[in-house]
């Protein structure tokens, strides 16, 4: 597939009220880069619930910060479509959809049905032992050194290895995949992102050809050989599906783990609280996912729609700032308090509605196993002296490096 980056549109439509036009530096400004989740929480009182953000990097779009508003958008794909909403460079002349995210219901179900059994709670639970073993293998490699660079030694390799295993890809591709993911997702240069995308595209095409000839029980092979209506998916569909899993599955758990372990390193008493209540780990994980959410939900309006008195028009772009919505005080009392006994309520780390994250159960399991095993083996750790935490700009929120010692 050709990947010439189309130019980003930065005009402000005439119907946008000038007083709602902002440039908040979402995922790129100094406030975000200094402390992204504090910035997300602050949006609840520094910005109106609907505003129009301008940015040369991510493009102009309506932004929503409220929990109920985000939930409404996510649950109404007929008004807020995901079609063409993924912001990765694709050539308009050789377009492909990111499947299943960019497909509206009811066709969406045709694709989710292919992979849901592979990512269901039941299927994912079977992976627990192997993920636990992998976590311990990684810890074995650095525990005696009494220090690690968490993102490189643990946060990155763990989800990438799990992903490669699930997909039916060789583990020796791990470092290459890491490089591609960094280039694609964290480069501020559209050229670098385009190059990474070309490399990934070329590799995945070979893999798809290989799986066509040599089926196995991995996800890629399942997609290649599925016959939803008696017919196989087209090459473009297979590619868009597999490529989407790649971008959805590699970076999100990585970033979340890094956020969580930075917090654990800086909060020894809260760390002890988790250690002292091993049977409460799932609830603790859930609360940490709420406060350290890493992704956004982009949509396009299929019709005019009014929200909080603001008139949005068909064709407008809109983004739900999910990491901010999870700090909405109307949904979560004292939202900045990390409370492992908080009453259960769906949080938006995995979005919601028909496009809710298909990897959510896997992500939860990986988080739970990683927190549990790391704290069991290394209960007391801290940030290395003199290190300064810097965050990646871009749409998956997390620190670039996390030097720990114990």
């Amino acid at each position, binding site marked *: 597939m050709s990947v010439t980056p189309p130019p980003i549109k930065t005009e402000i439509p005439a119907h946008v009220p000038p007083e709602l036009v902002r440039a908040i530096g979402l995922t790129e400004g100094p406030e975000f880069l200094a402390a992204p989740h504090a910035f997300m929480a602050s949006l609840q009182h520094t910005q109106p619930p609907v505003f129009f953000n301008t940015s040369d990097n991510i493009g102009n779009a309506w932004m929503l910060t409220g929990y109920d508003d985000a939930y409404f958008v996510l649950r109404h794909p007929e008004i807020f479509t995901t079609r063409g909403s993924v912001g990765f460079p694709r050539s308009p002349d050789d377009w492909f959809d990111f499947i299943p995210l960019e497909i509206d219901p009811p066709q969406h179900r045709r694709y*989710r049905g292919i992979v849901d059994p592979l990512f269901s709670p*039941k299927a994912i639970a079977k992976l627990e032992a192997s993920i636990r073993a992998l976590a311990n293998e990684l810890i074995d490699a650095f525990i005696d050194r009494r220090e690690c660079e968490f993102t490189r030694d643990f946060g990155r390799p763990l989800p990438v290895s799990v992903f490669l295993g699930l997909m039916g890809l060789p583990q020796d591709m791990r470092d290459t995949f890491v490089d591609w993911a960094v280039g694609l997702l964290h480069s501020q240069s559209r050229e670098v992102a385009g190059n990474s995308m070309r490399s990934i595209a070329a590799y995945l095409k070979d893999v798809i050809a290989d799986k066509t000839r040599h089926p196995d029980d991995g996800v890629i092979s399942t997609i290649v050989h599925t016959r939803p209506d008696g017919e196989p998916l087209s090459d473009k569909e297979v590619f868009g599906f597999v490529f989407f899993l790649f971008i959805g599955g590699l970076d999100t758990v990585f970033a979340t783990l890094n956020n969580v372990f930075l917090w654990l390193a800086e909060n020894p008493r809260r760390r002890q609280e988790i250690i002292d209540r091993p049977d409460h780990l799932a609830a603790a994980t859930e609360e940490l996912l709420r406060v350290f959410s890493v992704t956004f939900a982009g949509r396009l309006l299929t019709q005019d729609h009014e929200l909080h008195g603001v008139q949005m028009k068909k064709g407008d772009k809109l983004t739900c700032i999910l990491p901010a919505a999870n700090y909405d005080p109307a949904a979560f009392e004292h939202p900045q308090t990390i409370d492992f006994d908080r009453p259960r309520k*769906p949080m938006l780390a*995995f979005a919601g509605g028909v496009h809710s994250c298909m990897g959510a159960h896997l992500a939860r399991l990986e988080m739970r196993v990683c927190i549990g095993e790391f704290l069991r083996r290394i209960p007391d750790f801290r940030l290395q002296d003199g290190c300064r935490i810097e965050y990646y700009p871009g749409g998956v929120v997390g620190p670039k490096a996390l030097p720990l010692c114990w």
Partner: protein
Amino acid sequence: MAAVTYIEHNGKQHQVEVNDGISLMDGAISNMVRGIIGECGGGLACATCHCYVDDAWIERLTPPSDTEKEMLESVAAERRPGSRLSCQIPVEPGLDGLVVRLPATQF
């Protein structure tokens, strides 16, 4: 409106009034009943609102759609004859007195 009793896995009971047209899943979440997650908000995409409908009530509900049946194969807890996804059961006056039990885990 119907009075619905949700019984958590640990035996804790919640009797709540749920308005007509609201799903059993939404009825649980808006009344802080633990044990139902409903992550996808009724999109038949997550299998985290699994419940067990009491025997006396199963026959009185609209049977599950094919998609619901498909998703029920994916639930984390044991699937039983009364297994349903609570997001697919809209409350109506005829369901007054309905009892549903919640599994130990949704994922």
